[in-house]
């Protein structure tokens, strides 16, 4: 019997809380599969609707925290969230079924779309439609940039770091890895912990 949820350090508090309903591996897979099959236009709202509102496997505070972890790690939000939630519910196996579940529908669909596109991609009406689709996708990404900037950029230096990143990749052709290291370290050092935070952590 594994008891991934109960850490000895938490100890006394855990025994006071009534045992949480244990989520089965099958349920985790099915829930993430459904999210993977229905989340048109962005996964995050569907994750919240399913995991927080419908299933109540995690609460809103945990959801927001997991999302912020997902965003600062490499990897897509959707798959990082699957790993974090799966791990919380059922450890390593939970993570694996969650990520497979959320990826499977889209992967099968794009496999089929890819084959169709290879055969019919040069038909005039397909080319015309794809020209419109690609232009619309550019608009969609720009709206994500605006949304994220409003939410998480503070002060003019953050805009400087954002601009430096764009210049390094698109103008100087430094490549994404070098840009990430150089500008990333500059930005992290700029946001370095203040003395007070360090003292708080030490206490």
């Amino acid at each position: 019997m594994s008891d991934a949820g109960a850490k000895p350090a938490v100890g006394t508090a855990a025994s006071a809380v009534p045992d949480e309903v244990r989520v089965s591996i099958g349920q985790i897979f099915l829930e993430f599969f459904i999210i993977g099959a229905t989340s048109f236009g962005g996964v995050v709202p569907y994750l919240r609707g399913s995991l927080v509102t419908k299933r109540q496997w995690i609460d809103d505070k945990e959801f927001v925290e997991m999302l912020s972890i997902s965003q600062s790690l490499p990897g897509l939000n959707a798959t990082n969230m699957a790993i974090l939630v799966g791990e919380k519910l059922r450890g390593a196996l939970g993570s694996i079924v969650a990520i497979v579940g959320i990826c499977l529908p889209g992967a099968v669909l794009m496999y089929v779309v890819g084959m169709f596109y290879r055969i019919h991609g040069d038909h005039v009406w397909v080319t015309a439609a794809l020209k419109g689709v690609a232009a619309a996708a550019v608009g969609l990404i720009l709206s994500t940039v605006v949304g994220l900037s409003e939410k998480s950029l503070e002060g003019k230096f953050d805009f400087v770091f954002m601009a430096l990143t764009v210049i390094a990749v698109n103008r100087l052709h430094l490549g994404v890895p070098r840009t990430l290291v150089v500008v990333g370290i500059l930005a992290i050092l700029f946001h370095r912990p203040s003395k007070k935070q360090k003292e708080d952590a030490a206490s």
Partner: protein
Amino acid sequence: MNQIPALVRVFAYLSILTVGGGMAAFPEMKVLTVDVHKWLTFPQLIHLYSVGQMAPGPNMMMIVAIGQWAGGFLGALAVLIAFFGPTALLAFIVARMWKKLEKWPWRTSIQEGLAPVSIGLLLAGCFTMARGAISGVETAAIAVGVLLILLRYKVNPALLVLGGAVIGVISFMPSR
């Protein structure tokens, strides 16, 4: 020729570049899949990425199509594992030690510092893509239209991308 080792190498490498989202790896993906390995052309990459925005689930599933073209079914599978495996493992490790990191003061610094850089990478990926996708007044109008609609109204973005297809057929079909 067996492309699977190359597919694994390229997509495992791209995997760790996806800070803040899949688009962050797009400039590098263009160089490696189009210029270096010639698995597909730049317009094809843009088309697959854009069509992928209409599919449900994580928004980089278009990589499956690249894997399938270059290496068949096994190629598709290899690409999936290479692209999602490394970051999944990292997320798993972080999930395990997150409680300990909670009091580490640099945690907030990393989150705050990476936010502008990841948005910059997203924008850089967007510009790379725009160079291939925006080619005249009509395509620019579609992009700006989608941007303005999304900023003002709550619409499902997948529907707007589909709308782009309809406008595309209407505007770019050669008249016979």
